[in-house]
């Protein structure tokens, strides 16, 4: 069974649109997400296959609605929780100030 990321050959997507003078990142947080992922991979918190898997098992609606680096951040927090580095509540900041 294929997952939502497996879009090769899928029908119904629109024309490809280029963004003129596209910057490497559209916001600082995107660069931070890339750096964060590199640091955690380097530290062996998870490996690249686990990272990709965490993106690819996102619920399809969320996958399609998320920007590229939102998917990355979602995968990072999924893995941090699954690896026991922090609880989902801590990652969401729900204990901040508590």
């Amino acid at each position, binding site marked *: 069974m294929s997952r939502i990321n497996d879009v090769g050959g899928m029908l119904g997507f629109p*024309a490809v649109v280029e963004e003129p003078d596209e910057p490497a990142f559209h916001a600082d947080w995107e660069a931070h997400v890339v750096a*964060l992922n*590199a*640091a955690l991979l380097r530290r062996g918190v998870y490996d690249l296959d686990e990272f990709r898997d965490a993106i*690819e098992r996102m619920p399809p609606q969320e996958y399609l609605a998320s920007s590229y680096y939102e998917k990355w951040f979602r995968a990072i927090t999924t893995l941090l929780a699954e690896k026991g580095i922090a609880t989902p509540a801590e990652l969401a900041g729900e204990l901040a100030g508590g």
Partner: protein
Amino acid sequence: MSATHDDAPVAARVRHVEALLEQRGWLAPGEIDERIDAFAAGGSPAHGAAITARAWVDPGFRARLLADANTAIGELGYSMAGGLQEQQLTVVANSEDEHHVVVCTLCSCYPIALLGPSPGWYRSEAYRSRVVREPRAVLRDFGVELPATTRITVWDASAESRYMVLPRRPDATEGLDETALAGLVTRKGLIGTAVV
């Protein structure tokens, strides 16, 4: 894409997670900023352009590049071993009869070491889904119309295996030196969504 979202909430969440990890010793102070600087100083399409220009002027290098790209790019000081494991690089050469295009249908695998970060369209579902089914139509989205007799080959990259297109050398460039030739090579030319 992100530019159309209100991304203040996600920016705050990223800052929060970063601070949490730093507090718990999973990140060193300043590590994120160092990595951002290193990323900005990393790959750029200029690397792919330099490789292309060398292949245009040096038939021996061209042959080595097409036979074993990982080794050949080392002659120019480039490497696919910058990550945790070396990625296999295959360079595919356009010719009069054949045009190559690169995609990653599953995600966004790309030769970052040689081309820098991938453009947003490369990562879009529209490109990933369509280019393997109707490459001519997608090339038309980019304003590229190839003769009907030109065979188009689409290469699907993976985590371990990356591709770069070697564009055809434009006509009437005999008088140009290697640096000037490299200046003609575009990122899209190296992905295959433009001719050079």
